[in-house]
Each structure stands twice: as C-alpha cells, then as structure tokens.
C-alpha cells in the first residue's frame, strides 16, 4: 500500500526542576545519569542504548513492549552549550519503518535556585499514521499523559 504523507508540527514542554542547571545538564550529558531517566515505560524492560555526547556525536536507544514493535531513537548532537543549551536531530523507527524526523532544542535557564527547562520539538511525521500499532501507542500515550497530569506534584 503506497500512502505517502508528511505532517509538520511543533510542540513545547516547559518544566521546572529543583536542581541547578549544571545538574540538569549533567543528566543529559552523562550516559549513566541519562540512563536513569531516558528510558521507556517500566513494562518495556531494559533499553539498549549508546551515546557520544559531543557536537556531531550520535545517540541510539532501542526498546519496546514485549511482543510489540521495537522503538528506535537515533540522534545526532548539533549544538551543545554546557549548562545552557542542547540541540539535536533525531529520527524514530517502529521496527524498520521510519515514522518521524525531528529537530529538538533544550534550553536551561536558572530559576530561583532551580532550573527552568524548555523543550521544543519541530518534526516531520511520515506516512505511518494508520498503522494499528502506532494508533495504539498514541492512545496509550494519551492515557499516560493524563495519568502524569493527575500526579499531585505537578
């Protein structure tokens, strides 16, 4: 079935953390620190990941629910300003289908002893809209987001 399409979209997530910009930056820059939080949902089991945190360096991360499609994240770091900014491009595959190519900018700003993080993703989402696996993921994602928004600490 040939059904080619591209949708361009941008979204922004803003968070504040009770930790210095240096600590937040380190959580992105240090592979061991990053492995502590940059992973799939608990039921996915361990991810396989590698990262080379420098401009031009690559990062890959693969994981998925048992029996489900493998989600692959492949990134290239484009710009790094310690404690302030990280820019990377990445694509996502579900099994062997590329579903999106994105440009992501993470900006860190000191905020009253903590850090404000602004995440901007600009993406081109490709073709695979009607794949049932993706639809299911989307629905599950919505439920996860709902659950996260109901947590008392946000």
């Amino acid at each position, binding site marked *: 079935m040939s059904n080619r399409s591209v*949708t361009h979209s941008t979204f922004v997530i803003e968070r504040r*953390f009770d*930790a210095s910009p240096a600590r937040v930056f380190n959580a992105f820059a240090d592979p061991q620190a990053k492995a502590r939080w*940059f*992973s799939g949902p608990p039921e996915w089991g361990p991810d396989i990941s590698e990262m080379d945190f420098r401009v031009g360096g690559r990062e890959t991360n693969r994981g998925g629910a048992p029996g489900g499609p493998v989600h692959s994240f492949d990134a290239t770091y484009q710009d790094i300003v310690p404690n302030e900014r990280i820019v990377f491009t990445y694509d996502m595959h579900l099994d062997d289908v590329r579903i999106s190519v994105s440009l992501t900018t993470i900006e860190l700003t000191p905020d009253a*002893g903590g850090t404000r993080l602004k995440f901007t993703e600009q993406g081109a989402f490709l073709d695979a809209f009607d794949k049932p696996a993706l639809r299911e993921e989307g629905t599950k994602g919505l439920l996860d987001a709902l659950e996260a928004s109901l947590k008392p600490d946000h």
Partner: protein
Amino acid sequence: MVERLARGPASVSELAQPLAMSLSAVVQHLAILEASGLVRSEKIGRVRTCRIEPAALNMAEEWIAQRRADWERRFDQLGDYLASLPEVSTRQE
C-alpha cells in the same frame, strides 16, 4: 477554535464571537492553522468560511499526543532522578 470547527464549517466572525480575542488575532490564529494544514478556508463574496481538514487533525493530533506523552514521561522520570540526587551545595527545601 479547532473545537468549534470540529462541529462544522464557520465564518471568521462566527469563530471570533465566543472568544475573548480581537478579529485580527483570530485571523492571525487561523493563518497559523491553515499553514499547518489543519484548517482550510475559502472566501465567497465578503465571507470567509473555514472548515477543518479531518484527516490532518487526526494525524497531527496522534503524532503530537504520542510524542509529547513520551517526553512528558521522560521528564517525570528526570524529575524523580534529580530529586534522588544527594544535596551538595544547592539549597534544601
């Protein structure tokens, strides 16, 4: 605005009416929605009628919802991780 259009086509002034927005702000917002492919509009006489592009809405919504949820979950985990670090010289609550 997208919600209103999901119920059916509407003119620009019909869209502006229930919103606390100036007409020019509404026109600007519509231009963004049109550029994103979510909304189409056509001018008949002096009235511009807007309608939603249902396929685009579903595709874009799906994508944004899924990807945003992935990152929100990661940032929840980042917050938990940062909170678990021992205090060094940073201020304690």
